């Protein structure tokens, strides 16, 4: 009986010790492979047709797996401020081939694709290809037209296509009325700061993805700041013209009757007046600053 108890005790101890050890060993294995390694294997993938055949009917599950991998891939690269996102489109393409109805893949995937690096892959044409596939497979889903229009306008600077997208989308039963409004407002000029702000605002309101919300807020803050700075610098030029000198403080402008109170930036802190130009206190909060700044010609 003692033998039996001894063996039971030893086996239990070994079970616990070995398993705990295996957890630590596995963590070391994962570190050895590096986060890149996980997806390097994906590089050697056959086409989605082959995967579909191999999936034995479980293509839905595999699609989810590939979508998850795409998200993980994007997140990993994003944190490293990577300049290249080579695998993003293939991963999204495979996922949507396996399951053409993963709407989120089209919606978020194309935005991640179209944004300039390091925020995205900088591949707006690929993004359009993806969304158009989504629209083909899901013709009743009007929001994809919003995504298409968004990418066309913001990243491809193609207001004509954007307007077409919004118009087509607005005609689908169930589409929100602002689709038609957006279509109508789309100006011929490709860079319209108000249009851009409206699109980002719309994106912020409709998305549930936290990353997207963060990006949208950052863009909106920068757009607002750019807009404010444009206006403020115009006032500075006016002051220079009137007085022949450069204003040093906001009070100078106030006294000149050009301004009321200290101008505040979107995050609540005052703008900085420096040698005749206007700046924000903390540029890191305004990642996209400068996109909408007027050049010298536009000032007047």
């Amino acid at each position, binding site marked *: 009986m003692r*033998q*039996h108890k001894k*063996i*039971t005790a030893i*086996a*239990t101890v*070994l*079970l616990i010790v*070995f*398993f705990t*050890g*295996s*957890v630590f*060993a*596995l963590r*070391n*294995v*994962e570190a*050895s*492979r590096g986060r890149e390694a*996980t997806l*390097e*294997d994906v*590089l*050697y993938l056959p086409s989605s047709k082959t995967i579909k055949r191999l999936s034995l009917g479980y293509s839905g599950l595999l699609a989810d*797996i590939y979508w*998850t*991998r795409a*998200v*993980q891939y994007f997140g990993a690269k994003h944190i490293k401020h990577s300049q290249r996102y080579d695998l993003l489109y293939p991963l999204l393409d495979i996922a949507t081939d396996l399951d053409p109805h993963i709407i989120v893949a089209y919606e978020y995937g194309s935005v991640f694709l179209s944004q300039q690096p390091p925020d995205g892959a900088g591949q707006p044409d690929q993004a359009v290809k993806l969304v158009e596939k989504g629209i083909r497979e899901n013709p009743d889903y009007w929001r994809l037209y919003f995504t298409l229009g968004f990418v066309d306008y913001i990243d491809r600077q193609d207001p004509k296509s954007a307007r077409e997208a919004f118009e087509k989308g607005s005609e689908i039963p169930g589409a929100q009325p602002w689709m038609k409004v957006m279509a109508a407002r789309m100006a011929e000029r490709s860079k319209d700061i108000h249009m851009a702000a409206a699109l980002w605002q719309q994106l912020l309101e409709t998305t549930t993805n936290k990353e997207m919300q963060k990006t949208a807020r950052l863009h909106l803050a920068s757009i607002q700041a750019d807009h404010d700075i444009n206006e403020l610098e115009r006032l500075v030029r006016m002051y220079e013209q009137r007085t022949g000198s450069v204003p040093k403080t906001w009070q100078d402008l106030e006294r000149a009757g050009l301004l009321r109170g200290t101008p505040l930036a979107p995050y609540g802190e005052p703008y900085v007046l420096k040698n005749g130009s206007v700046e924000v206190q903390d540029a890191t909060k305004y990642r996209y600053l400068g996109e909408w700044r007027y050049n010298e010609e536009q000032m007047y």
Partner: protein
Amino acid sequence: MSARLSAIALNTFREAVRDRVLYNLVIFVLLLVASAPLFSEISIGMERLILVNVGLSAISLFGVIIAIFIGIGLVSKEIDKRTLYTILSRPVRRWEFIIGKYFGLMLTLVVNAGLMTVGFYIALFVTDHSVKRADGLMLVAIYFILLEFLMVTAITLLFSSFSTPIFSAIFAFALFAIGTFADDLRNFAGLAHGLTKWLSTAAAYAVPNFASLNVISRVAHDQHVAGTLVLYNSIYALLYSGAVAAAAVLIFERRNLK
């Protein structure tokens, strides 16, 4: 003790050989060597790539299938046929029996893989008409495949120690499939929150991680495998298998047999 362990292990090996199980490798070798020239018909310049992928994947898959099919009966067959009765009436400890069977099955798989490797290298030579430095890399992939066998065999042994062959097969195949997708399980755990995160992280460590052991595509592209990866994978496979084997011993030790 070691005399009994090796006696049981060798007897298990003998059973596998006489069961004509190992004859699968004859089929494998013939198929591989015969189809090698076919690959060049399919795609120019990619013969080696395809051969390595197909060859190594076949060695891995054949081995896992054998491991599971023999493994599920390792213990349950002896109980059903009551051959176990005459073993237990002898001075053999229950744990010696079960570990001896484990070693015997591992021996079978190693021999099987070894012979298949020889056939594989022959096919490789026939395709390349030369020996390349990168050929040595294949051995790393095969070593990892053996580590994979170590884990699969332990898992099948565990199920065999308390379950019927059918359920053992189902559970073992299921765990093998999940283990192959271990990376995605880990990804999922990374993206989840709260209780789901905790549960999926626990699952990611409890489930055997075969994804880390699969370097076939790397090796097919003549890429090196880091030394630290070899070290840690070895430690992982040994510890994980040891834990599972300990669990099998624990269950079998306490079980009232039929």
